[in-house]
């Protein structure tokens, strides 16, 4: 029977899956006897919860970690890890198809074994789950509880009815995919990041609802694995918050891949007919219907605040924005903090982990570390990748900060040319008439790695003047950053300075 692309999907129960579950939620697990009072109780064992638990335990705190489902959270199980594994395979297939671009022969028959792609993903996910295993946490001194956590007061909660006391608590319950309220969608069935990685058969036609990171990444990956991919987005551009040139370059890349992109388009209804999903679209005054086999929703995430009985703990929250925290990540209950997707606007694994470490400092050691001081980069793992850190130009303009951008197209970078990866750029934004870096956007095959240099510079307060002195191995794509710094240095050669140099040389 063909696979159904809806909530009936389950993870294939193979050896990899059994091993993963043994790591992240062993069936035979017995919750430990609770301590009298924990110095830190953490609700949620995703990236934020794990980072806090490991850091606090390493510092000698008595820590309890409560998870209702799988250790590792979305990132390991249904997010970054499985998607990157699939993207890597899809890039390989794209390169096979584009072999002539590299002076190589295109293989005669390129056959995608989708089941093998997904099996590789499951193997890798299982391998990495060892790092987050219950046994490892227990060995580190963390009391791991599986069950539903509910606050019972300002300093107590229960796990499946058992009472736990705490001096401080951290809520790190993450977020879940938003499901758009489109007539017929629920009945027709849809995929989200929670079940798309359970697929073992490639949908022949995939529609991604929403032009956000997940929709863009998976639409491209599935297209390269052989599906007909479409993206429908109700905004005029992809990735609304990103640099418009970045979205344009990605749009061009999608066109080369053969992804059908429909911007300014709204899905108004979904129907099932003859086993296929018919999706009714409206774009301004144009209406049409497309037939697909699977619909992937990708319109953001909603915080997991339900079922925690936050009222009992005096923790303020909002169903869409999540738990309200101050700049120190403290909630309205001074003993309870929050970190990660449940309270942050930027829902990234690395942001969750960084915020969790702030909580450990502030909750256990009376620290005064602020969320607002974090320099947060992020990356969308399409091909090319889009990475950003710091301010966008429009944000600087709005704040009245004079900003100037040093732009280096990747076609100026020798290594990008030798690799036939010229599509993209490095744009570094500085405060006008200074070398102080305000932010940067990089579009390149490996932008996610390249952005680290800019992040480091921003955290360390290094300006473009100093970056110009950093020797980059030749040829590397990161040379684009040095070239931007060189461009800055040339702007310092004012006519007066040139005249002085000229006089010196001709003395």
């Amino acid at each position, binding site marked *: 029977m063909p696979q159904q692309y809806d909530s009936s999907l389950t993870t294939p129960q193979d050896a990899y899956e059994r091993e993963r579950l043994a790591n992240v939620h062993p069936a035979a697990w017995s919750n430990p006897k609770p301590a009298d009072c924990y110095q830190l109780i953490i609700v949620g064992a995703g990236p934020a919860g794990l980072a806090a638990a490991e850091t606090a335990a390493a510092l000698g705190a008595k820590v309890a970690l409560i998870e209702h489902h799988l250790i590792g959270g979305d990132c390991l199980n249904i997010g970054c890890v499985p998607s990157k594994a699939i993207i890597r395979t899809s890039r390989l297939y794209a390169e096979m198809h584009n072999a002539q671009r590299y002076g190589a022969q295109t293989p005669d028959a390129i056959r995608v074994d989708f089941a093998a792609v997904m099996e590789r993903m499951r193997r890798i996910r299982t391998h990495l789950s060892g790092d987050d295993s219950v046994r490892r946490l227990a060995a580190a001194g963390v009391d791991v509880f599986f069950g539903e956590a509910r606050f019972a007061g300002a300093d107590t909660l229960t796990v499946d009815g058992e009472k736990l006391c705490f001096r401080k608590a951290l809520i790190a319950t993450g977020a879940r995919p938003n499901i758009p309220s489109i007539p017929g969608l629920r009945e027709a069935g849809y995929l989200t990041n929670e079940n798309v990685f359970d697929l073992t058969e490639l949908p022949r036609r995939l529609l991604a609802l929403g032009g956000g990171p997940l929709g863009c990444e998976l639409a491209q990956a599935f297209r390269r694995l052989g599906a007909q991919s479409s993206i429908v987005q109700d905004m*005029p551009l992809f990735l609304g918050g990103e640099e418009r040139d970045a979205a344009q370059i990605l749009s061009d890349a999608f066109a080369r891949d053969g992804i059908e992109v429909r911007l*300014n388009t709204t899905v108004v209804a979904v129907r099932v007919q003859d086993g296929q999903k018919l999706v009714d679209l409206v774009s301004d005054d144009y209406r049409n219907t497309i037939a697909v086999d699977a619909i992937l929703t990708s319109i953001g995430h909603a915080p997991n605040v339900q079922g925690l009985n936050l009222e009992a703990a005096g923790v303020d929250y909002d169903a869409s924005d999540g738990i309200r925290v101050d700049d120190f990540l403290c909630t309205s209950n001074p003993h309870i903090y929050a970190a990660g997707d449940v309270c942050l606007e930027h829902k990234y694994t690395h942001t969750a982990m960084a915020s969790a470490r702030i909580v450990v400092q502030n909750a256990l050691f009376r620290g005064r570390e602020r969320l607002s001081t974090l320099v947060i980069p992020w990356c969308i793992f399409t091909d090319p990748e889009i990475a950003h850190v710091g301010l966008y*130009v429009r944000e600087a*303009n709005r704040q009245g900060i004079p900003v100037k951008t040093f732009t280096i*197209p990747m076609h100026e970078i020798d290594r990008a040319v030798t690799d036939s990866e010229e599509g993209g750029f490095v744009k570094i934004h500085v405060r*006008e008439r200074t070398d102080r870096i305000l932010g940067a956007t990089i579009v390149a095959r490996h932008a996610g790695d390249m952005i680290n240099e800019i992040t480091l510079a921003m955290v360390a307060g290094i300006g473009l003047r100093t970056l110009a002195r950093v020797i980059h191995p030749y040829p590397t794509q990161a040379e684009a950053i040095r070239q931007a710094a060189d*461009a800055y240095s040339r702007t310092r050669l004012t006519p007066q300075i040139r005249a002085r140099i000229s006089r010196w040389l001709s003395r």
Partner: protein
Amino acid sequence: MRLSCACEGFIAAECITRNHSMTPIPPLTDEALLDQLQRAAFDYFLQAVNPRNGLVADTSRDNSPVSIAVVGFALSSYPVAVERGWMKRADAAQRSLAALRFFRDSDQSGSPAATGFKGFYYHFLDIHTGARVWQSELSMIDTALLIAGVLTASLYFTAESSDEIELRELADFLYRRIDWRWAQDDGDTIRQGWKPECGYLHYGWEGYSEAILLYVLAMGSPTHPIVGDCYQAWTATYQWENLYDHDYLYAGPLFVHHFSHAWIDLRGIRDSFMRGKRSDYFENSRRAACIHREYAQRNPHEFAGYDQNCWGLSACDGPSDEQPGVRNETRRQFGYAARGVPFGPDDGTLSAPSVLASLPFAPEMVLDAVRNMMARYPEILREGRFASGFNPTFTDANGRAWVSAGHYGLDQGIVLMMIENHRTRQVWRLMRGCPYIRNGLQRAGFRGGWLQQPSIHGAR
């Protein structure tokens, strides 16, 4: 076989003047060359106009509808033609009046087959009836280009004859009728379009564009000006970039750096943004031309023809994937598209009209490029006018570059006006006397330069 560089300009000039005779004559002077190109551009409007209603076809192709923007260019071209002796004043006034009367009497109900709504007009109209075609949008920017032409006519035809008095009254009526505030849709910036079938269009319109003219006209209105910090909200999306060692206000396609300049003399006057950058929009357009030339020299995608004297990526017609006979199968072709620098799209198609339109900003560089392109690709000139686009990477069996069929009115209009502004500043001088433009510029925060001088209404 192509001609050697040394004689390219010579032969090209000679071909124009002697109708393809090969008799050697001295090369045309710059002035003579520009005069020929400008006259040929003007002839487009003579050929493409419906004299009964003054409407002008978008392109020279069969069954082309009217583009309201092209009508704006045509209305601006008649004063130029009169001054140059290409058209009698009375004839020019009549043609202008025909168009203005048409718009005055047009169906403004906003119904699907009307001509306009709220003083704006649909982008494309039937050349005979003036009714909306192609289910086109009510276009704010194209209405601005049209009304700029209307105002140009009113500033030129200042005689006390009944025709010219009527013309001025109609122009004022048409401008004052436009409800710019409605086009804000209660938002921070002006919407780009509206359709009776679905209301306002919400295309993203971020970053520098040809919209200075639109905002200035919308702010200068005595009847329905936009409100709030609309202009500042738009300029807050600007990006000031250093590219190829030039600092400039970034916009990829070259035409963006031209259209507002066709009517507004932006030399030496600055808004808040340009004051902060110690530059002005005129200088910015010069730098844009330099960047386009630099890009072509670097030629990152290795297209045929690109070099320091063959450049210009802009909105233009190009080969499309659907066309037969396209040789290079691995690259995508974009047909009519807004090509730009440095991030494309770039399919090897160049726009000679966009290069020529940069004339006021960088005359020597532009003339070198124009002469070179004409010599190397004489097929880009038809009836003495530049085709919209050409692509030397795609060649026919005889090795000739792909050339867009026919002509586009927007290309001919911008070429005509920018040549005139380079030669005599006529349109700029006329529009300096437009109180609406002056008020709009001042409300947008422009200061300095000619804005400091007293206003001379109807200056010629």
